[in-house]
């Protein structure tokens, strides 16, 4: 349940600054995280199916238990900087 209106897109066009954001168990299915800075964000158990991670910064981001099925534009480099384990569900092209 949410406000069901389109998200605010800042007029300056700069990406989201979500350093250290606590997003545990959040539902981010289909989200656009393009260029987002998620440094040290807690994304434990998030559902980020089909989310777009193009150029997202994942340094120290916790992705334990995250469901990244179908996530787009995620790279090995991004993942190598994040905290993942065997419970992290990766998109097919990264398995």
């Amino acid at each position, binding site marked *: 349940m*949410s406000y069901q209106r389109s998200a605010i897109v800042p007029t300056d066009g700069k990406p989201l600054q979500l350093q250290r954001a606590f*997003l545990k168990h959040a539902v981010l299915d*289909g989200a*656009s995280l393009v260029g987002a800075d998620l440094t040290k964000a807690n994304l434990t158990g998030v559902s980020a199916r089909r989310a777009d991670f193009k150029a997202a910064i994942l340094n120290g981001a916790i992705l334990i238990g995250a469901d990244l099925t179908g996530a787009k534009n995620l790279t090995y480099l991004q993942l190598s900087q994040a905290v993942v384990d065997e419970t992290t569900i990766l998109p097919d092209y990264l398995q």
Partner: protein
Amino acid sequence: MTAVEFSELGRNWGLVAAAFVGLAVAIWRAVAADRQSRAQRDGLYQTRREHVATLFSQAVPALEDDKLHVRLGAIFTLREIVEAFPDLSRPTVDLLSAYLASVEYDDEIPRDVEEIIAIIIPKANSETGS
């Protein structure tokens, strides 16, 4: 030139002069009316802006309130502010992002956090069909 012709000439020049004066007065009144309406518009904008600044500053501490409905009210207020003043979208998104860095919870995601996520994290174009 006869007296009649002289009289007609004088009348015609008088009419021309009156027309010029009338035109000048009309232009002056239009300019004055435009200035007045612009001043009123600017004043209205300034009043709304001050009101929004007040709402914004009230929303910040309300985000820290213990009661969920107060926090949600603050979040919805911020959302409305951006609707009215898109130039405040960046500080609003940054404020709500900072809020996400200040919360902690166990397993169930709180309603206010859920709401902020819906407000600041857009859907990818392929999801919205745009």
